[in-house]
């Protein structure tokens, strides 16, 4: 465990000197992340902002174990995850993380209930248990009466709520959202932000949201600004100064 993690157990995520480069063509490398370090407080809401190509989605994918860094360390709830063997990652994602994607990304052939239950099934729960949990979560997001509807029968806001219920079904340590309000109109967007805040406050689930939307950022208690693969501003460092080497 790193010194930072040992010393600060109320941090859910610790990222240390993270680099990520992609090879484009024979000798051409794109550096998506250039030595990024940050800490995310347990139970908080963090917004990662920045222009397109700034590396915010790459950072989120690496924190979410969907991608691997070229260099650096990622710690989740006191455990280092960047060097875990590939076959252990699905279980990690199923049990510790929830994802909300831009465009909701529901599976169109499945009903709202099945979409939510699927995440619990992947965690290893039986179909029956998964369906029970999914029904509870859909109740929480106010869709208890829409569980048999498929994506095409739900409004954008409803689809989004299904995605939130899916992200929460396994009681994850952290929910990662990639442009979670990107496809929504202002009113629905507000409604969704409100819902995430409520879940955050009532359950203590940590949210990390990659966003362009200033309203989303404003509703978060921690904002991170990125540019060209580096963090250029981190509100947490202004408050307690305990983290990060800003690049």
């Amino acid at each position, binding site marked *: 465990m790193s010194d930072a993690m040992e010393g600060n157990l109320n941090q859910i995520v610790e990222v240390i000197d993270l680099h990520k480069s992609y090879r484009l063509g024979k000798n051409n490398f794109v550096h998506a992340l250039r030595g990024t370090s940050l800490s995310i407080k347990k139970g908080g809401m963090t917004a990662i902002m920045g222009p397109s190509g700034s590396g915010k989605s790459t950072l989120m*994918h690496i924190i*979410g174990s*969907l*991608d691997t860094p070229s260099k650096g360390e990622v710690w989740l709830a006191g455990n280092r995850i960047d060097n875990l063997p590939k*076959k252990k990652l*699905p*279980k990690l*994602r*199923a*049990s510790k993380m*929830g*994802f909300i*994607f831009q465009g909701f*990304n*529901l*599976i*169109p*052939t*499945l009903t709202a209930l*099945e979409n939510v239950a*699927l*995440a619990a099934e*992947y*965690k290893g729960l039986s179909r029956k248990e998964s369906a029970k949990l999914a029904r509870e979560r859909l109740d929480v997001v106010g869709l208890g009466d829409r569980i048999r509807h498929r994506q095409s029968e739900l409004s954008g806001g409803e689809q989004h709520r299904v995605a939130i219920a*899916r992200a929460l079904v*396994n009681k994850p340590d952290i929910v990662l959202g990639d442009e979670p309000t990107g496809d929504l109109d202002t009113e629905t967007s507000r409604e969704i932000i409100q819902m995430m805040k409520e879940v955050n406050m009532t359950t203590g689930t940590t949210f990390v949201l990659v966003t362009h939307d200033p309203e989303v950022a404003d509703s978060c208690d921690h904002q991170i600004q990125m540019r060209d693969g580096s963090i250029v501003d981190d509100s947490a460092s202004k408050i307690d100064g305990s983290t990060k080497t800003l690049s």
Partner: protein
Amino acid sequence: MRLLRNVFRRKVRSILTILGIVIGVFALIAMGSMAEKLTLLVDGGIEYYKDKAIVSEGGGMAFMASPMSKDRIKEVESIDGVKVAQAEINMLLEDLEAVNFGQPPMIVGTDLRGQEYESFEITFAKGRDLKEGDHKKVIVGSDLVNKLDAKVGKRIKIRGEKFEVIGILEKTLTGPDLTVVMSLADAQELYHKTLPDVLRKELKAEDLVTGITAFVDEDHDPDKVAKTIGKEIEGLSAMGPKAFQDQIGSAVGVFSAIITLIGLVALMVGGLSVVNTMSMSIAERTKEIGIRKAIGASSFKIIRQFLMESGVIGIIGGLIGLGLGIAFTSVANAAGNESGTALFLVTPRLAISAVLFALILGIIGGFFPAWRASRLNPVEALRYE
């Protein structure tokens, strides 16, 4: 249910793929059931010939044998190992008008000398067996009942002569099903009439036989006895069970293998369409695969899901193909029964292996696409539009 919804998310495409499997399984059932029927016929023959040597003049098969003198029975019985020799007339029930697959309907006339030594079990559905002194009486094989409109006690016409039906055989699925059995004397008369004028004037009906069946002692090898008959009696040749198996069995074996292979090729083509469909389906669902991986699906679960989908395509196609195959062969057999030519036999092993093969083909067809799906990078898959 989820599985079926996924399979039928592109209805037309899935139905066409299933149709490919249906056609393949149907072809396999149609071709395979013909092979099964032939194999059973041959197996029945092998069973029948296992303790016998079939003697004919100059060689040739029973139903195309040339006439020979009945007196030759004594010569055959003089050979060591021959228990008893039975004189027979084997002739076609009617002259063939077309090329016939399998066995044509036959008349067998027998002097019943071997009756008590017969090891090939035949049971009667109705009526009784022939006995000494029966005249103008016949036993009818099960596949000829409709064709001849036979009922026990009823008189039927065979080659222009009237005969009383005294027994109807239980189905054996082999040679006897297509056979009418009568006394040697009755068959000799019928056979005599079929001879060309010149021969008819020269030969007496009661002297004629077309074959002799030598019943071999248990402690003698029928193949060796057959060989001895051929060697020691001039002008006669004899065939033991091994010769029957070698000549007929292997020829039918090759024929069966070829027609089964044709069915298999048809099914393989269906299998290739599964590969195509699953590849397209997985390409379209790249993003879905990314979502599944992001929310915790392991590679194994992704592979299992797509294999189950392709397996479902295989099994649906297999079951429909089997149903159509059974329907077709039943109708064809019913139509053929009128003329005494039931060509197809759908055995449980054929039905089970055809459906199983379709299922396995579906799974194999889906394997490569499913494996590729499981290897997709979740980040790239999520970006896919």
